[in-house]
């Protein structure tokens, strides 16, 4: 009995090490927050577009080609930081880009896009943040990749960095 008790520390120790080891060798990204929507259809919503103030319907916008959806706002600093990458996606023309303008002032947003360049083929307004809630957005910026059948394939929380930029490009190739 006593001897078994003395072996307890070593048994627990190796169980913990084994977990660490397992997590090290499997392919995972600890910074990645999984989306409950991954591999599911895009949430359905209807709202207004930014520039022309027309009807924006999710079922019409998504599902005909691979689309990048970017939640952004003019008041968010990281959004400004990642804007260059969104511009790059738009100049490469591999993918349709839709912006969702989160809790923002439309006039300011139009000015902002004039100044920094407008990479979006269309911008939907999410004035009270309801669309973001449906998409499970943590905090902007957030970027989603949707395949040509309207299914969410990838999600990134936070600004796009050079590393994420490369990764998104790979994913686009993969699902095309």
């Amino acid at each position, binding site marked *: 009995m*006593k*001897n078994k008790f*003395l*072996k307890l*520390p*070593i048994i627990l*120790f*190796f169980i*913990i*090490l084994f*977990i*660490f*080891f*397992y*997590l*090290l*060798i499997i392919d*995972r990204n*600890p*910074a990645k*927050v*999984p989306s409950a929507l991954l591999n599911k259809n895009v949430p359905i919503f209807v709202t207004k577009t930014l520039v022309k103030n027309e009807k924006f319907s999710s079922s019409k916008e998504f599902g005909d080609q691979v689309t990048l959806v970017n939640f952004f706002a003019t*008041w968010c*600093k990281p959004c400004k*930081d990642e804007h260059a990458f969104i511009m790059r996606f738009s100049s490469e023309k591999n993918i349709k880009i839709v912006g969702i303008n989160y809790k923002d002032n439309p006039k300011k947003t139009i000015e902002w896009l004039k100044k920094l360049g407008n990479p979006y083929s269309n911008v939907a307004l999410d004035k009270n943040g309801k669309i973001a809630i449906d998409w499970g957005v943590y905090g902007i910026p957030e970027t989603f990749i949707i395949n040509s059948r309207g299914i969410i394939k990838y999600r990134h929380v936070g600004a796009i960095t050079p590393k994420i930029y490369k990764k998104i490009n790979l994913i686009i190739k993969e699902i095309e």
Partner: protein
Amino acid sequence: MAPTLGNLALWLSLVFAGSQFYNTRKKNKLKIISISVIGLLISSLFSFFLLIYLYVISDFSVLNVFQNSHTTKPLFYKITAVWGNHEGSMLLWIIVLTIFNYFIFKLYNKKNFIFVSKTLEIQSFITLGFIVFTILTSNPFERMVPVQENGLGFNPILQDPALAIHPPLLYIGYVGFSAAFSISVATLVLKNGKNFPWYKYMKPFVMVAWTFLTIGIALGSLWAYYELGWGGWWFWDPVENASFMPWLLGTALLHSLIIVDKKQSLQAWVLLLSILAFLLSVVGTFLVRSGILTSVHAFALDPTRGIYILLFIAILGGYSLMLFSSKSKIYSTKNYFNFFSKEGSILVNNIIMVVACATVLLGTIYPLLMEALTGNKISIGEPYYNSTVVPIMLPAILIMGVGPILSWGKESVLEIAKKVSSVFIITLAMTIIIFSIYKSYTFLGIAGIVLAFWIIFNNLTTLYRNKFNNLTGMVVAHLGVGFLMLGITASSIWQVEEIIKMKLKSETEINKYQIFFNEINEIKGSNYLSLRGDFLVYDKGKNIIAKLKPENRFYPVTGNFTSEASIHTNLFRDLYIVLGEGNINEGWTVRLYYNPLVVWIWIGAFTIFLGGVISINKSLKRMPK
């Protein structure tokens, strides 16, 4: 030239560590061992100072300097950048190891040759492991071509005096436990360990490790308080936990060593604790450097590093714990304690510390366990720790007030009551006074405040009665825990937070203070640009008490933004203000905190440190000659 020399010195320290391992194992002559020990010390110090030199002269042919430094950085931060990154901090870790190694070597006398040699053998094995790791996966002297004009600069939130000395102090703590580990393993290997006063050798090392770990953690927490701008000082971040766990075990170890010294019982327990304390320190390193979890502290992601450290932990832990399970039986005794005695109170303290440590460990690795088993990610945060660790620790604090004044052996309950009655009355009075000022009641809050005063006044009376004696260090450290407890409780239960949008020349109020937003200016710092708000604080009588100047800094080299909180401190409260986003038309988002008694956390930590230093002094004098 210098980088090659540094690399050479690193390889040389590998050779000396290897030779120390070989010669202590073969029990060769003292002279040969001393050459290895001193050679190891000098070569590792030399490589460390060379790296500092490379940072000072901004030698961008070295990858590590290029990645972490910049010519515009002030000299002081060029130097501290050496350990602000993974590779350089490994070098710091190694020199602390070799310094402790040297102190173990200094223990040699006529009677303990075999014991000290064995300890040095284990210590050199640990050192070897870290040197090989550094050379193979994290060599700070690695060159790069082509040579760059200027460096990348480094994370500006690390550019701070408290953070500059936080890692070295923390490492003295972590690595200090390596000496206890080596002594413990050496003892278990030894044939007549039971009759050998190994604990007398272990005690000063544990004291040093624990004392420095305490102040290291406190400085990190102080930095988080004023630099991160969240108004708090502890976030139960996995890496904070990684330093807190060895601290808890170290606390248990420190107290058990007193019993071993006095009564020769609990030996097996102490041997186990000292092994676990160091293993947990290395696991902490693993958590930070393997990229297995995310945290504000995490270094760059690199799985090969993780695998290496893990392998090393497996060897250290496997060997030592196996040894423990087969050899520790002779150290177990069947001495039972009386509950109402000094040893009884220490034993209860031990159980509580270990349970608290296990709770923190569970909270830290549970998300990893769940992910390994189910593939789902979960996160465990503050609510878990606040509702588990805090209540677990409360009884320990209660006992802490009484324990030191109990006698060894047995004591009647009546005697105890006599000893504490006056303190009991003062405590009650103070509690009533403070609650009549702050007027907010929660169960944990009342318990925390009562216990804090309980400890403070118990120790103050002891200090007053006994003047300066053997126990002074302990009493001072306990007094510090009382202050700490007061600060923690008060700032947790009475903190007031306001987040508002303020325009220039507008005014707001927080807890009887008027805050006036006077002006906003652009400032040019040494290597940053900043937007600085100017806030005037008035009290009820419209007198200006303070000017607070929170900043939003931009570091052009790395492109980082940081916010510098501005804090007005006195013994009763902190006024804490953070400038957020905004512009001249709409005003700025401003966060205001009223943090009562928070300064007592740092006063407490420093008092504990002081107590530790006094005790180190005492225990060094009592080393076997």
